[in-house]
């Protein structure tokens, strides 16, 4: 064809190139399906665990006695286990199963290293197991979706980047298909960006380890795991939600889009509706998503410009997201009749529809006016569950039902059972989401309602809680249905597995290796005549050969993705860290005392941030209920920040001095006796477990290392002595108020926690200390130099 374009010519060369090599000898290879089977099993098993823990904590919210006063079963400790299990164990293993299956086939190559595949699998399961042990023990960083402590963080970095990333990149490099299919781009973005997010959000001082090395004193295994982030307050909040939002983007969205672009065409037996749209979808998402994080912090102490930037980019995100959804659904063009009888397509259609709903709702919730109503309410929880149960869950089940019978080399045990799973799951999900949407909006409206005299219509927070209990029961039913569906899937896969052949048949594939000197893309030639140099350069650029070259070079492609996300991250984060005026400090705000610091760490360990915020927004109804709105300078010693993201209980930012020590003591013992109708769990162990006084010096020293001006309290034993004195004082006051004898309470954890709660939000109204105040965060950081 004399008039064919360069690219058409190139493609033909590719084909003839392979044909040529086939005469000279092809390379043979066998796909590693065993690793896919392993990740597939892990997905469904961990999924059931995640859903079961979800049901348990859902029951606890409707019926708090279901915690039985056992510390390992308390809501604050189990909720992080539920979220981590759902995200990293269920969705994570699903992503790995899908990636290992599709990457080998799209690359026409076995995974780069079987050893790395196995290290990845077992390493990841060990990390999940570590989470399942440490979180109920109260070992946590206290940052949502980044709760796991530093030794596990290090393990994640090695398993994710070295074992998984190295293995994946190695496979791309030794592939036998020249073009990288768009699903592989989404996987590349996932690996690159999750690495960046994980590393930057987990920069900490391992307080226990430093204490052990410095003093030779072992202050217990829990303290050995303790760390403090290098960021504090507002900066920590921005970093955390830059991470938190993009973890949703690059752990729960981009890899699943990759799976969608691979498995939906496979299941529908037709190519994706528009490959061009998928390319635009990819780059738009990668570029825009990274900017959107600050929308989680509207009306907080974060500067206004940062949240506006987050909002604008969140709204922009709607367009590529819906482009992707439409692309997914239209892939089924001409195959809609099959949706009626094929449960796999049913799962995919509903999964992609939920992607569309979630990505419409996300931008909606990022709009400040909407966010003022939705934030801290159950609306956010409904939004998250429509994403995880609908999008991630149903895409996973669709993928597993398609993949597992092929991996077991037999037919699915029961299509009818799979269809039943689909309907049970759908009904459960709809029940859950509708109930919690209603609960969230009810909650938000009740918080802000006032009467004709300008007073809050529901001044007692408990009123806004008891109103929601019926919805919480509906959620339990919805969750149980979804869990039942997953158990049916496990049974179906188990029975399918039992029907496997005695030995799995291995198919040997043959393909030509890629030529090292590929010349399929000769440099573009200018089509212009009599133009200046830049005209020719421009014409070559416009021919688009550069993008097609990118698409064949995985290492460079990864670097370009890194550049795309770095631009957004740097523009968003750097001013926050470098402009002093963004965090105006307050002279009267002083560091926590050693005992308060220990109490704060108990607050974190118990996961109090899962139910209580510490951030009063500048709204009439919030200041009326909780007190003066929160200022950025109030949080400069908060490592980690504890603003929270929901209010199952009231905000605690100005809790200090509001109630007596005795009220708090009795409240921890039995909340419902003090506040009838309260759904807070009982904390009897706080009344009996001793404060770890030897560890207090280590806590103070670690904070001092991070720039907190602790002065003489860093001297050997000074912090511990100070803490014991303050504990005795509070215990004596508690006794005076009618509480137990101070001999029984002075060394108990509840005293440290009361010390912390009584301090919250009080510095704002104190006199600045007589000594020269620390006036900027920078000076604070140099105060101990």
């Amino acid at each position, binding site marked *: 064809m004399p008039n064919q374009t360069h*690219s*058409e010519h190139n*493609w033909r060369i590719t*084909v003839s190139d*392979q044909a040529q090599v*086939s005469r000279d000898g*092809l390379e043979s290879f066998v796909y590693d399906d*065993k690793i896919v*089977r392993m990740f597939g099993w892990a997905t469904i098993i961990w999924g059931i665990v995640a859903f079961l823990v979800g049901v348990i904590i859902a029951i606890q919210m409707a019926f708090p006695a279901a915690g039985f006063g056992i510390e390992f079963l308390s809501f604050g400790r189990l909720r992080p286990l539920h979220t981590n299990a759902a995200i990293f164990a269920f969705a994570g293993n699903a992503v790995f199963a899908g990636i290992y299956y*599709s990457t080998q*086939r*799209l690359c*026409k190559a076995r995974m780069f290293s079987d050893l790395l595949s196995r290290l990845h699998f077992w390493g990841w399961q060990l990390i999940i197991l570590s989470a399942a042990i440490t979180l109920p023990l109260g070992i946590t960083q206290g940052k949502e979706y980044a709760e796991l402590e530093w030794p596990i963080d290090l393990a994640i970095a090695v398993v994710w980047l070295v074992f998984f990333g190295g293995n994946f990149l190695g496979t791309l490099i030794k592939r036998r*298909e020249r*073009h990288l*299919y*768009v*699903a592989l781009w989404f996987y590349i973005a996932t690996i690159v960006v999750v690495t960046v997010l994980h590393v930057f959000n987990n920069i900490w001082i391992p307080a226990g380890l430093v204490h052990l090395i410095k003093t030779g004193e072992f202050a217990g295994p829990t303290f050995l795991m303790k760390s403090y982030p290098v960021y504090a307050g507002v900066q920590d909040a921005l970093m955390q939600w830059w991470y938190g939002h993009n973890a949703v983007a690059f752990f729960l969205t981009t890899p699943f889009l990759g799976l969608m672009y691979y498995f939906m*065409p*496979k299941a529908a*037996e*037709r*190519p994706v509706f528009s*490959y*061009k749209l998928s*390319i635009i979808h990819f*780059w*738009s998402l990668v*570029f*825009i998503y990274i900017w959107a994080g600050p929308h989680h912090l509207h009306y907080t102490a974060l500067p206004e*410009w940062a949240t*506006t*930037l987050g909002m*604008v*980019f969140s709204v922009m995100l709607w367009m590529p997201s819906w482009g992707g959804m439409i692309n997914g659904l239209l892939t089924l063009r001409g195959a809609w009749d099959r949706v009626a009888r094929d449960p796999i397509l049913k799962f995919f259609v509903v999964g992609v529809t939920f992607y569309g709903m979630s990505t419409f709702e996300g931008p909606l919730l990022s709009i400040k006016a909407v966010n003022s109503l939705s934030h801290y309410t159950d609306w956010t929880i409904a939004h998250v569950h429509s994403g995880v149960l609908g999008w991630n869950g149903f895409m996973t089940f669709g993928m597993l039902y398609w993949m597992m019978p092929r991996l077991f080399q037999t037919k699915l045990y029961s299509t009818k059972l799979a269809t039943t799973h689909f309907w049970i799951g759908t009904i459960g999900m709809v029940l859950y989401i509708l109930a919690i949407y209603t609960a969230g909006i009810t909650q938000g409206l009740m918080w802000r309602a006032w009467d004709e005299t300008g007073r809050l219509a529901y001044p007692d927070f408990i009123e806004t809680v008891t109103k929601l209990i019926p919805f919480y029961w509906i959620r339990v039913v919805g969750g149980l249905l979804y869990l039942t569906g997953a158990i049916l899937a496990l049974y179906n896969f188990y029975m399918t597995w039992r029907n*496997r052949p005695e*030995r*799995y*048949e*291995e*198919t*040997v*594939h*043959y*393909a030509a290796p890629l030529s090292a000197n590929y010349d399929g893309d000769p440099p573009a030639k200018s089509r212009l005549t009599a133009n200046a140099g830049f005209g020719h350069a421009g014409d070559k650029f*416009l*021919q*688009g050969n550069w*993008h*097609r070259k990118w698409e064949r070079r995985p290492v460079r492609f990864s670097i370009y993705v890194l550049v*795309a996300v770095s*631009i*957004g991250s740097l*523009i968003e984060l750097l*001013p926050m860290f*470098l*402009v*002093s*005026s963004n965090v105006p400090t307050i002279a009267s705000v002083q560091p926590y005392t050693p005992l308060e610091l220990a109490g704060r760490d108990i607050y974190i360990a118990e996961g109090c941030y899962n139910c209580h915020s510490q951030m009063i927004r500048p709204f009439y109804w919030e200041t009326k209920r909780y007190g003066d709105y929160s200022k950025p300078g109030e949080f400069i010693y908060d490592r980690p920040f504890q603003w929270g993201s929901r209010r199952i209980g009231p905000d605690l930012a100005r809790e200090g001095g509001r109630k007596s020590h005795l009220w708090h003591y009795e409240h921890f013992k039995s909340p419902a006796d003090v506040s009838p109708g309260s759904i807070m769990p009982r904390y009897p162990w706080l009344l009996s477990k001793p404060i770890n006084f030897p560890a207090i010096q280590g806590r103070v020293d670690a904070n001092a290392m991070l720039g907190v001006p602790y002065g003489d309290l860093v001297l050997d034993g000074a912090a511990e002595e100070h803490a014991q004195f303050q504990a005795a004082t509070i215990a004596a006051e508690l006794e005076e108020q009618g509480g137990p004898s101070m001999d029984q309470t002075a060394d108990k954890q509840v005293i440290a926690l009361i010390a912390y709660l009584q301090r919250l939000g009080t510095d704002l109204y104190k006199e600045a200390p007589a000594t020269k105040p620390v006036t900027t965060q*920078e000076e604070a950081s140099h105060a101990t130099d």
Partner: protein
Amino acid sequence: MRLTDIVSNMDLDTYPIIGLVLFLVAFAIIVWGVLKTPKSMIQHQAHLPLEDDFGIQTESTNKSKGVSHG
């Protein structure tokens, strides 16, 4: 002079606009690149998931050494 001082004295009012412009430029370039990709190449790329076993020779074996169940 520290980096903090330099950034503190910068006028950041236009910062979000710079971000937006950067995105729009990148977006326009990508869209242009995509639109210029020849149809035959796009079709080849779009069909890759359906060609796991096409364009390569395969043979099924139930080899005596086989593979253990996993």
